[in-house]
């Protein structure tokens, strides 16, 4: 967990005005399967908007790349000396986005394991690996964004498109604000902006409180370990 604290480079507050509140839960196996199955034919089948196809394919490449890197790392629990040679060969092709990586046979385990054919790294071991899960989580978030964009592009006559406002406060002092275009013409523009400002103030305060709570827990644990 301290790794994630080290990665805090910015506070990002996203306010979205939606038609209905949804909970996105990160279910690793689900995300893994969805990205595993991405290919040019599959994207056509599910009618992904052509503008986004390349970005979806990049997700698939990143997944394969992440796994390959773990295969060749002797410190990783997924290290496989038998497949290392092949993995290293694939690595140079996989690390370039415009290479022939799509024609490489995949080394990733099947999301639905075949009981008759036990491979070295079962899917369950893979989904237990902390590093792989972290990458999978990031890829999942990107995919969610792509899915949303796809939905917007495919359903042009959307009555109530989601309105987004984002403020990013970086540790080096830079502040970035990004807004959906439809805010500019929205009748309740000032209210939307005011609510976003509220989100920033209160969100920041509560993130701070959460941080204090976690530090409290860690301190308590540390003290009880010392006794």
């Amino acid at each position, binding site marked *: 967990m301290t*790794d994630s604290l080290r990665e*805090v480079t*910015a506070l990002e507050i996203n306010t979205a005005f939606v038609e209905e509140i949804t*909970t996105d839960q990160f279910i690793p196996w689900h995300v893994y399967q969805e990205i595993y199955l991405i290919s040019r034919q599959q994207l056509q089948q599910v009618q992904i908007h052509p503008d986004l196809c390349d970005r979806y394919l990049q997700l698939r490449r990143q997944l394969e790349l992440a796994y390959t890197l773990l295969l060749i790392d002797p410190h990783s629990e997924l290290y496989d000396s038998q497949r290392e040679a092949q993995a290293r060969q694939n690595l140079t092709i996989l690390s370039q986005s415009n290479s022939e990586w799509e024609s490489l046979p995949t080394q990733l385990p099947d999301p639905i394991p075949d009981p008759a054919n036990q491979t070295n790294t079962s899917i369950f071991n893979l989904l237990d690996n902390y590093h792989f899960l972290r990458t999978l*989580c990031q890829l999942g978030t990107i995919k969610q964004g792509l899915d949303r964009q796809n939905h917007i592009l495919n359903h042009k006559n959307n009555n109530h498109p989601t309105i987004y406002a984002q403020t990013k406060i970086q540790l080096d002092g830079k502040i970035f604000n990004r807004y959906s275009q439809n805010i500019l013409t929205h009748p*309740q523009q000032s*209210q939307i902006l005011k609510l976003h400002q509220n989100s920033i103030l209160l*969100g920041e305060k509560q*993130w701070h409180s959460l941080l204090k709570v976690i530090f*409290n827990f860690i301190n308590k644990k540390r003290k009880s370990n010392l006794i």
Partner: protein
Amino acid sequence: MGSDSWIQIEKIKVSRQQNLPDRVCFQFNENLLRDIQLWRETNRKLQLPSEILTDFRYLILLNKQKSFSVELNFCSFYQQNEEKIAVIQSKISLDGKINQQIRHDYLQEPQLLQGIMTAHYWVIEQMLNQLKLKSSRKRKKQTPQPQLAQKHQVLSWSLSLGLTMIVAVILLLTSINLPIMLIITVLFAVLAQVAIKRFLLSNLPNSVLQK
């Protein structure tokens, strides 16, 4: 000033026996919003039932274990005409991402939305604050037995060793078997040390004791 049933922690079923806490839900209605505004203005602290606090603490600890970052999900529902609608949802994660979803159609009722939003954040703040207080209060209760300062430890050990030597010499003079003599001396050293410590603990003033 109770908060019995309007704060709920939704649980998801992980297996047949396990239900894990997932989302913290607030069920607001017109009266409750009014009450909350009153409590805010008079700076009253929300009385959270211990069950909720325990579940909440469990939620945070679980989160800490399983994910890469602690992520808390709070959702406010508003009851209007027998219908409970999710109006505001905040996802606060430790790595700095705060995601807010606000229902679009409530923009048409700015006063109400503002009221719900203020109440939403106020309750979250109350919950986080009470969690902090409780854990630091718990810490004070669980302080270890007062231990003696270093120099007093040395004193008690040296005293007991000195007495042990005297006993050993006496035993030598009475020529008991060697192994029995050793056992007796060791036992005596330990017991003497404990007795001296107890004596010092009960007689020294509190300021000398180290927590």
